[in-house]
Protein backbone atom coordinates (compact mmCIF):
# COMPACT_ATOMS: atom_id res chain seq x y z
CA UNK A 1 0.00 0.00 0.00
CA UNK A 2 1.15 3.53 -0.78
CA UNK A 3 1.48 6.32 1.76
CA UNK A 4 -1.46 6.47 4.15
CA UNK A 5 -4.26 8.96 3.56
CA UNK A 6 -4.18 10.25 7.09
CA UNK A 7 -1.25 9.96 9.42
CA UNK A 8 -1.04 11.03 13.05
CA UNK A 9 2.45 11.10 14.53
CA UNK A 10 2.81 11.40 18.29
CA UNK A 11 0.03 13.93 18.47
CA UNK A 12 -0.37 15.56 21.85
CA UNK A 13 -2.75 18.24 22.94
CA UNK A 14 -2.68 19.88 26.32
CA UNK A 15 -5.46 22.01 27.80
CA UNK A 16 -3.87 23.69 30.78
CA UNK A 17 -2.78 20.87 33.04
CA UNK A 18 -4.87 18.29 31.24
CA UNK A 19 -3.31 16.18 28.56
CA UNK A 20 -6.42 15.39 26.52
CA UNK A 21 -4.53 13.40 23.91
CA UNK A 22 -1.01 12.09 24.38
CA UNK A 23 1.45 10.70 21.85
CA UNK A 24 -1.25 9.40 19.62
CA UNK A 25 -0.22 7.79 16.38
CA UNK A 26 -2.30 5.96 13.85
CA UNK A 27 -2.86 5.87 10.13
CA UNK A 28 -5.78 5.49 7.80
CA UNK A 29 -5.30 4.21 4.27
CA UNK A 30 -7.34 5.15 1.21
CA UNK A 31 -10.85 3.79 1.44
CA UNK A 32 -10.36 2.13 4.82
CA UNK A 33 -13.02 2.00 7.49
CA UNK A 34 -11.34 2.55 10.84
CA UNK A 35 -12.91 2.67 14.26
CA UNK A 36 -11.88 4.84 17.18
CA UNK A 37 -13.29 3.75 20.50
CA UNK A 38 -12.74 4.36 24.16
CA UNK A 39 -14.61 5.03 27.37
CA UNK A 40 -16.31 8.39 27.91
CA UNK A 41 -13.82 11.23 28.08
CA UNK A 42 -11.06 9.22 26.44
CA UNK A 43 -10.45 12.00 23.92
CA UNK A 44 -12.13 10.66 20.82
CA UNK A 45 -13.93 13.84 19.86
CA UNK A 46 -10.75 15.77 20.66
CA UNK A 47 -8.98 13.66 18.06
CA UNK A 48 -11.64 14.69 15.55
CA UNK A 49 -11.22 18.32 16.48
CA UNK A 50 -7.47 17.97 16.03
CA UNK A 51 -7.77 16.39 12.61
CA UNK A 52 -10.28 18.98 11.40
CA UNK A 53 -8.33 21.95 12.71
CA UNK A 54 -10.69 23.04 15.48
CA UNK A 55 -7.81 22.47 17.90
CA UNK A 56 -4.14 22.68 17.15
CA UNK A 57 -1.91 19.94 18.56
CA UNK A 58 0.60 20.99 21.23
CA UNK A 59 3.09 18.57 19.72
CA UNK A 60 3.20 16.04 16.95
CA UNK A 61 2.24 16.01 13.33
CA UNK A 62 -0.95 15.33 11.43
CA UNK A 63 -0.67 14.88 7.71
CA UNK A 64 -3.29 14.27 5.12
CA UNK A 65 -2.41 12.89 1.70
CA UNK A 66 1.24 13.49 2.49
CA UNK A 67 0.91 17.12 3.58
CA UNK A 68 0.64 18.58 7.06
CA UNK A 69 -2.74 20.01 8.09
CA UNK A 70 -1.51 21.41 11.39
CA UNK A 71 -2.27 25.10 11.81
CA UNK A 72 -4.77 25.31 8.99
CA UNK A 73 -8.23 26.71 9.49
CA UNK A 74 -11.03 24.11 9.49
CA UNK A 75 -12.51 25.28 6.19
CA UNK A 76 -9.16 24.79 4.48
CA UNK A 77 -8.85 21.29 5.86
CA UNK A 78 -12.33 20.53 4.59
CA UNK A 79 -11.25 21.82 1.21
CA UNK A 80 -8.35 19.37 1.29
CA UNK A 81 -10.83 16.52 1.59
CA UNK A 82 -11.72 15.84 5.21
CA UNK A 83 -15.39 16.12 6.13
CA UNK A 84 -17.06 15.37 9.42
CA UNK A 85 -20.30 14.97 11.26
CA UNK A 86 -20.87 16.09 14.82
CA UNK A 87 -21.65 14.23 17.98
CA UNK A 88 -24.53 16.57 18.75
CA UNK A 89 -26.04 17.07 15.34
CA UNK A 90 -25.07 20.45 13.95
CA UNK A 91 -27.26 20.98 10.92
CA UNK A 92 -28.09 24.54 9.92
CA UNK A 93 -31.41 24.81 11.75
CA UNK A 94 -32.98 27.58 9.72
CA UNK A 95 -32.21 25.97 6.39
CA UNK A 96 -34.24 23.36 4.56
CA UNK A 97 -32.91 19.86 3.97
CA UNK A 98 -32.00 20.82 0.43
CA UNK A 99 -30.23 24.00 1.47
CA UNK A 100 -28.23 22.25 4.16
CA UNK A 101 -26.67 20.11 1.48
CA UNK A 102 -26.43 22.98 -0.98
CA UNK A 103 -24.43 24.99 1.53
CA UNK A 104 -21.81 22.28 1.60
CA UNK A 105 -21.38 22.66 -2.19
CA UNK A 106 -20.29 26.22 -1.58
CA UNK A 107 -16.57 25.61 -1.63
CA UNK A 108 -16.65 23.92 -5.02
CA UNK A 109 -18.21 26.93 -6.71
CA UNK A 110 -16.14 28.09 -9.62
CA UNK A 111 -17.86 31.44 -9.71
CA UNK A 112 -17.51 34.00 -7.00
CA UNK A 113 -19.61 36.77 -5.63
CA UNK A 114 -19.62 38.89 -8.77
CA UNK A 115 -21.39 36.12 -10.63
CA UNK A 116 -23.87 35.62 -7.83
CA UNK A 117 -24.72 39.31 -8.09
CA UNK A 118 -24.82 39.54 -11.85
CA UNK A 119 -26.66 36.24 -12.34
CA UNK A 120 -25.09 35.55 -15.71
CA UNK A 121 -25.78 32.43 -17.76
CA UNK A 122 -22.68 30.73 -16.37
CA UNK A 123 -23.92 31.28 -12.87
CA UNK A 124 -27.33 29.90 -13.77
CA UNK A 125 -25.75 26.82 -15.31
CA UNK A 126 -23.70 26.21 -12.22
CA UNK A 127 -26.67 26.65 -9.90
CA UNK A 128 -28.55 24.08 -11.96
CA UNK A 129 -25.57 21.77 -11.75
CA UNK A 130 -25.53 22.09 -7.97
CA UNK A 131 -29.27 21.52 -7.82
CA UNK A 132 -28.86 18.30 -9.72
CA UNK A 133 -25.96 17.17 -7.55
CA UNK A 134 -27.80 17.86 -4.32
CA UNK A 135 -30.88 16.06 -5.57
CA UNK A 136 -28.77 13.12 -6.62
CA UNK A 137 -27.28 12.87 -3.13
CA UNK A 138 -30.67 13.23 -1.48
CA UNK A 139 -31.98 10.53 -3.78
CA UNK A 140 -29.20 8.11 -2.89
CA UNK A 141 -29.95 8.55 0.79
CA UNK A 142 -33.71 8.52 0.39
CA UNK A 143 -34.34 12.08 1.47
CA UNK A 144 -35.87 13.39 -1.75
CA UNK A 145 -39.36 13.68 -0.31
CA UNK A 146 -38.08 15.84 2.54
CA UNK A 147 -36.12 18.24 0.38
CA UNK A 148 -38.14 21.28 1.36
CA UNK A 149 -38.71 20.31 4.96
CA UNK A 150 -37.05 22.25 7.75
CA UNK A 151 -34.18 20.04 8.81
CA UNK A 152 -35.26 20.25 12.43
CA UNK A 153 -38.55 18.59 11.62
CA UNK A 154 -36.82 15.41 10.44
CA UNK A 155 -36.79 12.36 12.70
CA UNK A 156 -33.56 11.92 14.58
CA UNK A 157 -32.20 9.16 12.38
CA UNK A 158 -32.85 11.21 9.26
CA UNK A 159 -31.04 14.16 10.77
CA UNK A 160 -27.99 11.98 11.29
CA UNK A 161 -28.33 10.77 7.74
CA UNK A 162 -28.64 14.33 6.47
CA UNK A 163 -25.46 15.25 8.29
CA UNK A 164 -23.66 12.49 6.45
CA UNK A 165 -25.15 13.64 3.14
CA UNK A 166 -24.06 17.18 3.86
CA UNK A 167 -20.54 16.04 4.67
CA UNK A 168 -20.43 14.01 1.46
CA UNK A 169 -21.44 17.05 -0.56
CA UNK A 170 -17.99 18.51 0.18
CA UNK A 171 -16.62 15.49 -1.76
CA UNK A 172 -14.32 14.20 0.97
CA UNK A 173 -11.60 11.61 0.71
CA UNK A 174 -11.94 10.99 4.42
CA UNK A 175 -15.17 11.09 6.33
CA UNK A 176 -15.13 11.44 10.10
CA UNK A 177 -18.28 10.21 11.82
CA UNK A 178 -18.71 11.22 15.45
CA UNK A 179 -21.03 8.78 17.23
CA UNK A 180 -23.50 8.43 14.40
CA UNK A 181 -25.41 5.68 16.24
CA UNK A 182 -25.99 7.71 19.39
CA UNK A 183 -29.63 7.68 20.37
CA UNK A 184 -30.64 5.19 17.70
CA UNK A 185 -32.70 2.09 18.23
CA UNK A 186 -31.41 -1.33 17.06
CA UNK A 187 -33.24 -1.16 13.73
CA UNK A 188 -31.87 2.27 13.01
CA UNK A 189 -28.41 1.10 14.02
CA UNK A 190 -28.57 -1.82 11.62
CA UNK A 191 -29.59 0.59 8.87
CA UNK A 192 -26.80 2.95 9.81
CA UNK A 193 -24.22 0.19 9.49
CA UNK A 194 -25.46 -0.56 6.02
CA UNK A 195 -25.39 3.13 5.22
CA UNK A 196 -21.80 3.62 6.34
CA UNK A 197 -20.59 0.64 4.39
CA UNK A 198 -22.54 1.79 1.39
CA UNK A 199 -21.08 5.28 1.68
CA UNK A 200 -17.57 3.94 1.86
CA UNK A 201 -18.05 1.82 -1.23
CA UNK A 202 -20.12 4.20 -3.31
CA UNK A 203 -18.07 7.32 -2.66
CA UNK A 204 -14.75 5.58 -2.26
CA UNK A 205 -13.89 7.56 0.81
CA UNK A 206 -12.12 6.38 3.92
CA UNK A 207 -14.13 6.54 7.13
CA UNK A 208 -13.01 7.15 10.68
CA UNK A 209 -15.77 6.15 13.03
CA UNK A 210 -16.05 7.18 16.65
CA UNK A 211 -18.72 5.11 18.27
CA UNK A 212 -19.77 3.75 21.61
CA UNK A 213 -21.94 1.03 20.26
CA UNK A 214 -19.67 -2.01 20.07
CA UNK A 215 -22.01 -3.89 17.79
CA UNK A 216 -21.73 -1.16 15.19
CA UNK A 217 -17.98 -0.71 15.51
CA UNK A 218 -17.15 -4.39 15.61
CA UNK A 219 -19.59 -5.05 12.78
CA UNK A 220 -18.15 -2.74 10.16
CA UNK A 221 -14.65 -1.56 11.00
CA UNK A 222 -11.62 -3.12 9.42
CA UNK A 223 -9.33 -1.95 12.17
CA UNK A 224 -9.98 -0.34 15.51
CA UNK A 225 -7.94 2.04 17.64
CA UNK A 226 -8.72 2.13 21.33
CA UNK A 227 -8.13 5.26 23.39
CA UNK A 228 -8.11 5.57 27.13
CA UNK A 229 -7.22 8.78 28.96
CA UNK A 230 -5.98 10.23 25.68
CA UNK A 231 -3.55 7.40 24.97
CA UNK A 232 -3.81 4.60 22.52
CA UNK A 233 -4.00 1.35 24.41
CA UNK A 234 -4.69 -1.02 21.57
CA UNK A 235 -5.01 -1.35 17.83
CA UNK A 236 -6.17 -4.26 15.76
CA UNK A 237 -8.97 -6.07 14.02
CA UNK A 238 -12.32 -6.29 15.78
CA UNK A 239 -11.55 -9.85 16.88
CA UNK A 240 -8.21 -8.81 18.38
CA UNK A 241 -9.72 -5.85 20.17
CA UNK A 242 -12.48 -7.95 21.62
CA UNK A 243 -9.93 -10.29 23.16
CA UNK A 244 -7.48 -7.62 24.31
CA UNK A 245 -7.23 -7.62 28.13
CA UNK A 246 -6.23 -3.92 28.25
CA UNK A 247 -9.37 -2.93 26.39
CA UNK A 248 -11.53 -5.03 28.66
CA UNK A 249 -9.84 -3.45 31.66
CA UNK A 250 -10.40 0.06 30.31
CA UNK A 251 -14.06 -0.56 29.74
CA UNK A 252 -14.95 -2.76 32.67
CA UNK A 253 -12.23 -1.91 35.17
CA UNK A 254 -9.59 -4.26 36.46
CA UNK A 255 -10.25 -6.79 39.14
CA UNK A 256 -8.37 -6.14 42.36
CA UNK A 257 -5.73 -8.75 42.88
Amino acid at each position, binding site marked *: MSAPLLQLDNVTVQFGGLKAVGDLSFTIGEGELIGLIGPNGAGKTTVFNLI*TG*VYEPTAGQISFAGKSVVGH*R*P*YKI*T*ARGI*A*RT*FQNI*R*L*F*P*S*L*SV*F*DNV*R*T*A*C*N*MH*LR*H*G*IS*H*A*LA*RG*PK*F*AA*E*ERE*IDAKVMELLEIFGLTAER*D*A*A*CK*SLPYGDQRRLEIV*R*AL*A*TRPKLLLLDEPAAGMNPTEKAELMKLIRFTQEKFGCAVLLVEHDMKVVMGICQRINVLDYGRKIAEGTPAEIRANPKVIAAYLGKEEE
Partner: protein
Amino acid sequence: MIERSKILLLSALLVCAGLSHVAGGISPYYFDILIGIGINIILAVSLNLVNGYTGQFSLGHAGFMAVGAYASSWLTLKYGSSIGSGTLSTTTVFVLALLGGGLGAALSGLLVGVPSLRLKGDYLAIVTLGFNEIIKGVIQNAEPLGAQRGLGGMELHTNFFWTFAFAAITIYVVLNLVGSTYGRGFLAVRDDEIAAEAMGINTTKYKVLAFVLAAFFAGIAGGLYAHFKQFIHPEGFNFLRSVDIVVMVILGGMGNTAGVVVAATLLTILPELLRKVAHYEWLPDWLQQVAENRMILYSLLLIILMLTRPQGLFGNFTGKRNQRLQ
Protein backbone atom coordinates in the same frame (compact mmCIF):
# COMPACT_ATOMS: atom_id res chain seq x y z
CA MET B 1 -36.13 31.61 -13.87
CA ILE B 2 -32.86 33.40 -13.34
CA GLU B 3 -33.94 36.18 -15.60
CA ARG B 4 -36.96 36.96 -13.49
CA SER B 5 -35.01 38.86 -10.87
CA LYS B 6 -33.39 40.99 -13.57
CA ILE B 7 -36.72 41.75 -15.17
CA LEU B 8 -38.06 42.71 -11.76
CA LEU B 9 -35.15 45.05 -11.17
CA LEU B 10 -35.53 46.65 -14.58
CA SER B 11 -39.24 47.17 -14.16
CA ALA B 12 -38.66 48.59 -10.67
CA LEU B 13 -36.20 51.07 -12.14
CA LEU B 14 -38.66 52.00 -14.89
CA VAL B 15 -41.42 52.51 -12.36
CA CYS B 16 -39.07 54.72 -10.36
CA ALA B 17 -38.34 56.80 -13.45
CA GLY B 18 -42.03 57.08 -14.23
CA LEU B 19 -43.07 57.97 -10.70
CA SER B 20 -40.25 60.43 -10.44
CA HIS B 21 -42.17 62.86 -12.66
CA VAL B 22 -45.31 62.49 -10.59
CA ALA B 23 -43.44 62.70 -7.30
CA GLY B 24 -42.04 66.10 -8.19
CA GLY B 25 -45.55 67.52 -7.95
CA ILE B 26 -46.43 66.52 -4.40
CA SER B 27 -46.01 68.81 -1.44
CA PRO B 28 -42.47 69.15 -0.06
CA TYR B 29 -43.60 67.71 3.27
CA TYR B 30 -44.75 64.43 1.74
CA PHE B 31 -41.80 64.40 -0.61
CA ASP B 32 -39.50 64.65 2.37
CA ILE B 33 -41.15 61.62 3.98
CA LEU B 34 -41.03 59.74 0.70
CA ILE B 35 -37.30 60.24 0.26
CA GLY B 36 -36.81 59.36 3.93
CA ILE B 37 -38.55 56.06 3.29
CA GLY B 38 -36.29 55.26 0.36
CA ILE B 39 -33.14 56.08 2.32
CA ASN B 40 -34.29 54.06 5.30
CA ILE B 41 -35.07 51.10 3.06
CA ILE B 42 -31.50 51.16 1.73
CA LEU B 43 -30.12 51.38 5.28
CA ALA B 44 -32.33 48.71 6.79
CA VAL B 45 -32.08 46.21 3.93
CA SER B 46 -28.30 46.48 3.87
CA LEU B 47 -27.99 46.18 7.65
CA ASN B 48 -30.23 43.14 7.46
CA LEU B 49 -27.47 41.40 5.50
CA VAL B 50 -25.25 41.70 8.57
CA ASN B 51 -27.67 41.53 11.48
CA GLY B 52 -30.29 39.32 9.90
CA TYR B 53 -28.77 36.97 7.37
CA THR B 54 -25.25 36.67 8.75
CA GLY B 55 -26.29 36.84 12.39
CA GLN B 56 -23.74 39.42 13.50
CA PHE B 57 -24.80 42.38 15.59
CA SER B 58 -23.64 45.66 14.12
CA LEU B 59 -24.67 48.82 15.91
CA GLY B 60 -22.73 51.33 13.86
CA HIS B 61 -24.58 51.59 10.57
CA ALA B 62 -25.00 55.35 10.91
CA GLY B 63 -21.21 55.60 11.05
CA PHE B 64 -20.93 54.17 7.56
CA MET B 65 -23.74 56.40 6.47
CA ALA B 66 -21.74 59.36 7.77
CA VAL B 67 -18.66 58.30 5.82
CA GLY B 68 -20.74 58.09 2.65
CA ALA B 69 -22.50 61.38 3.30
CA TYR B 70 -19.33 63.34 3.96
CA ALA B 71 -17.26 61.67 1.26
CA SER B 72 -19.85 62.23 -1.45
CA SER B 73 -20.52 65.80 -0.31
CA TRP B 74 -16.85 66.55 -0.36
CA LEU B 75 -16.65 65.14 -3.89
CA THR B 76 -19.59 67.12 -5.28
CA LEU B 77 -18.46 70.31 -3.54
CA LYS B 78 -14.99 69.95 -4.95
CA TYR B 79 -15.75 68.71 -8.45
CA GLY B 80 -19.37 69.73 -8.95
CA SER B 81 -18.66 73.15 -10.35
CA SER B 82 -15.37 72.49 -12.09
CA ILE B 83 -16.77 69.92 -14.52
CA GLY B 84 -19.31 72.31 -15.88
CA SER B 85 -23.03 72.78 -15.78
CA GLY B 86 -25.73 71.03 -17.74
CA THR B 87 -28.00 68.38 -16.24
CA LEU B 88 -26.12 65.44 -17.64
CA SER B 89 -22.72 66.32 -16.25
CA THR B 90 -23.99 67.36 -12.82
CA THR B 91 -25.96 64.15 -12.57
CA THR B 92 -22.91 62.18 -13.57
CA VAL B 93 -20.84 63.90 -10.92
CA PHE B 94 -23.57 63.23 -8.37
CA VAL B 95 -23.82 59.52 -9.14
CA LEU B 96 -20.05 59.14 -9.21
CA ALA B 97 -19.87 60.95 -5.89
CA LEU B 98 -22.52 58.61 -4.47
CA LEU B 99 -20.52 55.61 -5.58
CA GLY B 100 -17.38 57.23 -4.22
CA GLY B 101 -19.13 57.70 -0.89
CA GLY B 102 -20.24 54.08 -0.99
CA LEU B 103 -16.70 52.90 -1.69
CA GLY B 104 -15.36 55.06 1.10
CA ALA B 105 -17.86 53.55 3.49
CA ALA B 106 -17.04 50.05 2.22
CA LEU B 107 -13.37 50.70 2.84
CA SER B 108 -14.05 51.82 6.38
CA GLY B 109 -16.25 48.73 6.73
CA LEU B 110 -13.26 46.62 5.75
CA LEU B 111 -11.01 48.43 8.19
CA VAL B 112 -13.44 47.96 11.05
CA GLY B 113 -14.61 44.51 10.01
CA VAL B 114 -11.35 42.64 9.66
CA PRO B 115 -10.18 43.07 13.23
CA SER B 116 -13.56 43.20 14.96
CA LEU B 117 -15.44 40.37 13.31
CA ARG B 118 -13.59 37.86 15.44
CA LEU B 119 -15.83 39.13 18.20
CA LYS B 120 -19.34 37.92 18.64
CA GLY B 121 -22.67 39.19 19.82
CA ASP B 122 -22.50 41.94 22.41
CA TYR B 123 -18.78 42.48 21.92
CA LEU B 124 -19.17 43.14 18.22
CA ALA B 125 -22.07 45.47 18.97
CA ILE B 126 -19.87 47.49 21.30
CA VAL B 127 -17.00 47.69 18.80
CA THR B 128 -19.28 48.85 16.00
CA LEU B 129 -20.90 51.32 18.36
CA GLY B 130 -17.44 52.59 19.20
CA PHE B 131 -16.65 52.96 15.53
CA ASN B 132 -19.80 55.02 15.06
CA GLU B 133 -18.71 57.38 17.84
CA ILE B 134 -15.16 57.58 16.49
CA ILE B 135 -16.37 58.57 13.05
CA LYS B 136 -18.59 61.18 14.63
CA GLY B 137 -15.69 62.43 16.73
CA VAL B 138 -13.35 62.63 13.76
CA ILE B 139 -15.86 64.62 11.74
CA GLN B 140 -16.57 66.92 14.67
CA ASN B 141 -12.91 67.84 14.70
CA ALA B 142 -12.24 67.95 10.98
CA GLU B 143 -12.21 71.58 9.87
CA PRO B 144 -12.42 70.85 6.13
CA LEU B 145 -15.64 68.94 6.82
CA GLY B 146 -17.19 71.77 8.77
CA ALA B 147 -16.46 70.25 12.16
CA GLN B 148 -19.18 71.08 14.69
CA ARG B 149 -20.84 73.55 12.35
CA GLY B 150 -21.87 70.87 9.91
CA LEU B 151 -21.32 70.80 6.18
CA GLY B 152 -23.60 72.55 3.76
CA GLY B 153 -23.73 73.97 0.28
CA MET B 154 -24.37 70.77 -1.57
CA GLU B 155 -26.78 71.11 -4.46
CA LEU B 156 -30.08 69.30 -4.44
CA HIS B 157 -29.45 66.23 -6.54
CA THR B 158 -31.31 63.51 -4.73
CA ASN B 159 -34.67 62.93 -6.32
CA PHE B 160 -37.27 60.23 -6.28
CA PHE B 161 -35.64 58.29 -9.07
CA TRP B 162 -32.16 57.98 -7.60
CA THR B 163 -33.41 57.23 -4.12
CA PHE B 164 -35.69 54.42 -5.11
CA ALA B 165 -33.43 53.16 -7.88
CA PHE B 166 -30.74 52.60 -5.27
CA ALA B 167 -33.29 51.09 -2.91
CA ALA B 168 -34.28 48.66 -5.66
CA ILE B 169 -30.63 47.85 -6.39
CA THR B 170 -29.96 47.22 -2.71
CA ILE B 171 -32.87 44.81 -2.46
CA TYR B 172 -31.86 43.15 -5.71
CA VAL B 173 -28.28 42.63 -4.60
CA VAL B 174 -29.17 41.33 -1.14
CA LEU B 175 -31.83 38.93 -2.40
CA ASN B 176 -29.69 37.67 -5.26
CA LEU B 177 -26.75 37.11 -3.05
CA VAL B 178 -28.57 35.40 -0.22
CA GLY B 179 -30.53 33.23 -2.63
CA SER B 180 -27.48 31.90 -4.43
CA THR B 181 -25.46 28.89 -3.35
CA TYR B 182 -22.63 31.29 -2.70
CA GLY B 183 -24.84 33.35 -0.42
CA ARG B 184 -26.05 30.36 1.58
CA GLY B 185 -22.74 30.82 3.35
CA PHE B 186 -24.13 33.86 5.16
CA LEU B 187 -26.98 31.84 6.60
CA ALA B 188 -24.67 28.98 7.47
CA VAL B 189 -22.45 31.38 9.42
CA ARG B 190 -25.48 32.66 11.29
CA ASP B 191 -26.80 29.19 12.09
CA ASP B 192 -23.62 27.49 13.22
CA GLU B 193 -20.13 28.82 12.65
CA ILE B 194 -18.34 25.62 13.58
CA ALA B 195 -20.47 23.54 11.26
CA ALA B 196 -20.06 26.15 8.53
CA GLU B 197 -16.27 25.94 8.79
CA ALA B 198 -16.50 22.17 8.72
CA MET B 199 -18.43 22.45 5.45
CA GLY B 200 -15.59 24.38 3.87
CA ILE B 201 -16.98 27.87 4.39
CA ASN B 202 -14.51 30.59 5.25
CA THR B 203 -16.56 32.21 7.99
CA THR B 204 -14.29 35.23 8.37
CA LYS B 205 -14.52 36.01 4.69
CA TYR B 206 -18.29 35.84 4.75
CA LYS B 207 -18.62 38.04 7.78
CA VAL B 208 -16.31 40.68 6.34
CA LEU B 209 -18.07 40.48 3.00
CA ALA B 210 -21.48 41.06 4.58
CA PHE B 211 -20.06 43.92 6.58
CA VAL B 212 -18.39 45.60 3.61
CA LEU B 213 -21.41 45.26 1.34
CA ALA B 214 -23.71 46.64 4.01
CA ALA B 215 -21.32 49.53 4.61
CA PHE B 216 -21.25 50.28 0.89
CA PHE B 217 -25.00 50.68 0.71
CA ALA B 218 -25.08 52.65 3.94
CA GLY B 219 -22.58 54.99 2.29
CA ILE B 220 -24.85 55.37 -0.72
CA ALA B 221 -27.76 56.13 1.60
CA GLY B 222 -25.61 58.73 3.32
CA GLY B 223 -24.80 60.38 0.01
CA LEU B 224 -28.46 60.48 -0.97
CA TYR B 225 -29.32 61.97 2.39
CA ALA B 226 -26.62 64.63 2.12
CA HIS B 227 -27.73 65.72 -1.34
CA PHE B 228 -31.33 65.88 -0.27
CA LYS B 229 -31.02 67.78 2.99
CA GLN B 230 -28.13 69.83 1.54
CA PHE B 231 -26.79 70.14 5.03
CA ILE B 232 -25.25 67.45 7.20
CA HIS B 233 -24.18 67.51 10.79
CA PRO B 234 -22.20 64.91 12.77
CA GLU B 235 -25.05 64.58 15.26
CA GLY B 236 -27.27 63.37 12.44
CA PHE B 237 -25.22 60.18 12.34
CA ASN B 238 -25.07 59.39 16.00
CA PHE B 239 -25.75 56.22 17.90
CA LEU B 240 -29.50 56.89 17.93
CA ARG B 241 -29.59 56.86 14.16
CA SER B 242 -27.91 53.45 14.20
CA VAL B 243 -30.45 52.21 16.70
CA ASP B 244 -33.28 53.42 14.45
CA ILE B 245 -31.95 51.22 11.67
CA VAL B 246 -31.49 48.23 13.94
CA VAL B 247 -35.08 48.64 15.11
CA MET B 248 -36.29 48.54 11.52
CA VAL B 249 -34.41 45.29 10.96
CA ILE B 250 -35.67 43.69 14.14
CA LEU B 251 -39.21 44.86 13.59
CA GLY B 252 -39.26 43.59 10.03
CA GLY B 253 -37.90 40.22 11.07
CA MET B 254 -34.22 39.40 10.99
CA GLY B 255 -33.31 37.95 7.63
CA ASN B 256 -36.62 38.81 6.03
CA THR B 257 -36.02 41.43 3.37
CA ALA B 258 -39.66 42.05 2.49
CA GLY B 259 -40.50 42.50 6.16
CA VAL B 260 -37.62 44.90 6.65
CA VAL B 261 -38.75 47.01 3.68
CA VAL B 262 -42.22 47.27 5.18
CA ALA B 263 -40.84 48.02 8.64
CA ALA B 264 -38.56 50.75 7.28
CA THR B 265 -41.54 52.31 5.53
CA LEU B 266 -43.84 52.08 8.55
CA LEU B 267 -41.30 53.41 11.00
CA THR B 268 -40.56 56.37 8.76
CA ILE B 269 -44.22 57.22 8.41
CA LEU B 270 -45.34 56.49 11.96
CA PRO B 271 -43.85 59.51 13.77
CA GLU B 272 -45.19 61.82 11.08
CA LEU B 273 -48.57 60.16 11.21
CA LEU B 274 -48.73 60.65 14.95
CA ARG B 275 -47.81 64.28 14.48
CA LYS B 276 -50.79 64.68 12.18
CA VAL B 277 -53.14 62.84 14.48
CA ALA B 278 -52.26 65.26 17.24
CA HIS B 279 -53.83 68.01 15.17
CA TYR B 280 -57.09 66.33 14.26
CA GLU B 281 -59.64 68.64 15.86
CA TRP B 282 -62.44 66.08 15.84
CA LEU B 283 -60.52 63.66 18.03
CA PRO B 284 -61.17 63.76 21.76
CA ASP B 285 -58.74 65.93 23.62
CA TRP B 286 -57.03 63.14 25.49
CA LEU B 287 -56.30 61.25 22.29
CA GLN B 288 -54.73 64.35 20.80
CA GLN B 289 -52.66 64.67 23.93
CA VAL B 290 -51.49 61.10 23.60
CA ALA B 291 -50.55 61.61 19.98
CA GLU B 292 -48.81 64.82 20.92
CA ASN B 293 -46.32 62.78 22.90
CA ARG B 294 -45.59 60.82 19.81
CA MET B 295 -42.07 59.75 20.63
CA ILE B 296 -43.31 58.13 23.84
CA LEU B 297 -46.09 56.47 21.93
CA TYR B 298 -43.66 55.34 19.30
CA SER B 299 -41.43 53.76 21.91
CA LEU B 300 -44.42 52.13 23.58
CA LEU B 301 -45.53 50.67 20.29
CA LEU B 302 -42.08 49.19 19.79
CA ILE B 303 -42.10 47.66 23.25
CA ILE B 304 -45.53 46.15 22.72
CA LEU B 305 -44.47 44.80 19.34
CA MET B 306 -41.35 43.22 20.71
CA LEU B 307 -43.30 41.64 23.54
CA THR B 308 -45.97 40.21 21.32
CA ARG B 309 -43.94 39.47 18.20
CA PRO B 310 -40.29 39.01 19.14
CA GLN B 311 -39.68 37.42 15.75
CA GLY B 312 -40.62 40.70 14.08
CA LEU B 313 -43.76 41.77 12.30
CA PHE B 314 -43.23 39.43 9.44
CA GLY B 315 -41.28 36.69 11.07
CA ASN B 316 -37.81 35.34 10.73
CA PHE B 317 -36.72 32.91 8.16
CA THR B 318 -38.71 29.75 8.09
CA GLY B 319 -37.82 26.57 6.26
CA LYS B 320 -40.14 27.51 3.44
CA ARG B 321 -38.90 31.05 2.99
CA ASN B 322 -35.45 29.69 2.87
CA GLN B 323 -35.67 28.03 -0.46
CA ARG B 324 -34.34 29.37 -3.67
CA LEU B 325 -35.41 32.90 -4.06
CA GLN B 326 -35.35 32.85 -7.80
